[in-house]
């Protein structure tokens, strides 16, 4: 594919709001995970909540975010975090500039999510009419529950009138939006795309992953020999993608995308990491690169025994032990449908600022996984980074980002 410019990008997770807070946390090895105290959830697990507990790093919690009056019907935790993300690092201003440049029909919206505003539905089910069982009047399915709700909110937030879609492939969702938007940019059906992902904490995922015995009672430890499950997180990350013939030195570029399907099991990865390997190989082909061109891999690294073993085999098969790699989920938690975009932006930070993030929480790298795993962050030039995102249903996506020389 022709490289695309990330002309703006932003990320908000439990590490903090925006690029500076995220970079500081990643460089210093800080984790944003905390014991679960979300809503009425009673589970012995740790989570990555976007909270107001870190002083002025976070200027207000998600639920303090007020949507504009005209968009009140969209109000739910997921769209509050969407707005919070859009209004971070000046991202919304850059979008408005792009709309002024290209027109409101030529800027597409491609966002990934796994659960959108399902929390709103979970809460509404506690308020059903005792006689009829009906949901309360103030519950709006379309603008909170539906997988498209965050996309429609974003489209309306900017008054856009062009192409838009949500991609919902569980934990690969917001990696795959980069591929879908790249296709349309390459075809010229749009001139710019808002890509990204937003997922927020809800009972379905917390109790759901617990039911599969995939949550850890400790902060997650990706690629650790003693890893025993994930820490569910939440996050919002966005990028503005545009074609660019002559990117300025230091610009961050999307160089390649690769997608595949495991065709194996609904909630377990292919044990040999076959689908993961195919996605990484496809991304290298798409970028016109070989394994030796990659300086850093941001792993999916959920910290479940099965995921890290399978992904590790796939990475080892393609990259041997030559490429430093880490999962940043020990810092952010697993932000599920937002993870692809969150980790693409983490790669952008690594590329732009010359560092390789470490893996908070991980102590003893699993000796059975033969990869060059980074425990501690370190400074170093990164010219090209690959990031993996894999989801339930065997949905795999790898992205390659680079920095313009």
């Amino acid at each position, binding site marked *: 594919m022709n490289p695309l410019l990330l002309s703006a990008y932003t990320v908000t997770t439990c590490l903090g709001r925006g690029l500076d807070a995220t970079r500081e946390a990643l460089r210093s090895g800080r984790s944003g995970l905390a014991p679960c105290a979300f809503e009425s959830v009673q589970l012995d697990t740790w989570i990555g909540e976007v909270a107001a507990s870190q002083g002025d790093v976070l200027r207000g919690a998600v639920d303090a975010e007020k949507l504009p009056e005209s968009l009140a019907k969209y109000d739910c935790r997921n769209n509050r975090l969407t707005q919070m993300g859009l209004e971070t690092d000046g991202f919304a201003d850059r979008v408005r500039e792009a709309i002024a440049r290209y027109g409101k029909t030529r800027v597409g919206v491609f966002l990934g999510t796994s659960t959108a505003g399902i929390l709103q539905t979970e809460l509404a*089910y506690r308020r059903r009419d005792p006689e009829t069982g009906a949901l309360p009047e103030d519950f709006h399915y379309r603008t909170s529950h539906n997988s498209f709700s965050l996309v429609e909110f974003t489209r309306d937030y900017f008054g856009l009138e062009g192409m838009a879609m949500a991609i919902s492939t569980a934990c690969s969702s917001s990696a795959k939006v980069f591929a879908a938007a790249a*296709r349309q940019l390459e075809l010229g*059906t749009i001139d710019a795309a808002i890509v990204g992902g937003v997922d927020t904490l809800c009972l379905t995922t917390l*109790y*759901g992953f617990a039911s599969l015995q995939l949550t850890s009672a400790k902060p997650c430890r990706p690629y650790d020999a003693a890893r025993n499950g994930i820490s569910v997180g939440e996050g919002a990350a966005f990028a503005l993608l545009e074609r660019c013939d002559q990117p300025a030195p230091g610009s961050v570029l999307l160089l390649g995308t690769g*997608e595949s399907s495991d*065709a194996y099991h609904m909630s377990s990865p292919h044990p040999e990491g076959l689908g993961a390997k195919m996605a990484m190989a496809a991304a290298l082909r798409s970028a016109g690169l070989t394994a030796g061109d990659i300086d850093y891999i941001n792993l999916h690294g959920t910290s479940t025994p099965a995921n890290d073993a399978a992904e590790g085999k796939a990475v080892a098969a393609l990259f041997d032990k030559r490429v430093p790699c880490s999962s940043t989920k020990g810092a952010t938690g697993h932000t599920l449908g937002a993870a692809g975009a969150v980790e693409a932006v983490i790669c952008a930070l690594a590329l732009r600022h010359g560092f390789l993030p470490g893996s908070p929480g991980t102590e003893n790298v699993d000796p059975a996984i033969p990869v060059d795993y980074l425990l501690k962050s370190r400074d170093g030039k990164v010219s090209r980074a690959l990031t993996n995102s894999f989801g*339930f*249903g065997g949905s795999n996506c790898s992205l390659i980002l680079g920095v313009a020389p």
Partner: protein
Amino acid sequence: MSRPLTAWIEGIGFLAPGLPDWPTARAVLRGEMPLTATPSVLPAPSLLPPAERRRASRVVKLTLAIGLEAAAHAGADTAKLATVFSASGADGHNCHSICEQLATDDRQISPTRFHNSVHNAAAGYWGIATGAMAPCQVICAYDGSFGAGLIDALGQVVLDHQTTLLIAYDSEYPEPLFAKRPVPDVAGVSLLLTPERSERSLASITVTPSSVSAESLADAALEALRISIPALRALPLLQKLARGEAGEVCLDYLPPMQLKVDIRLC
């Protein structure tokens, strides 16, 4: 500098209330037989291994039925096809059960219910059933989901030169969600799209943005299906294909952006 979103249709799959397959739908759309108002009938998902077959929901059975019909129509090997699934919602009954249980004191939801709750559940079962390891997209654009799926599928056909199976589908929620999202039944349409014309090609389609109103259907019963089930916003296109009519037809997407489809017959 825009390249046209164009592809050849080699196969069609269809299932809707009173319309169990494409040959029946084709006959009704041609006016050769009336639409009989009966609930959608879902074939057993015989391609799935026993464990997955037991867990297969209505959307899983639906997407297997229409996807396999389109692939068989085209004589295509499902294991080699890229797929684009597009739906306005996931498994409504499963979603209701989870929300209902999470509102009680016993919140230990079943693991199978949880993995079936993802929007891409039907796509995951499709992969297990067919062994297809090619890219698989799963899209939602509320009432514009068919249009969004069509755009992405055509993108893959044109850009990656990849034969792609579009599977657009929807299913119903039980109450109390049904009152908030009254999709009446399961229904879907599947199109096998190829980058080149072959002896099996039925027609070519080229999609461009438009701002005109979507075409409606003269038959009130068919129009009711088009309006009430998002995937069936494709019906005006299918009617032209059924009748062997070339020309333009406008489909609903995300007003004010609609999709003009230019049909050329083979």
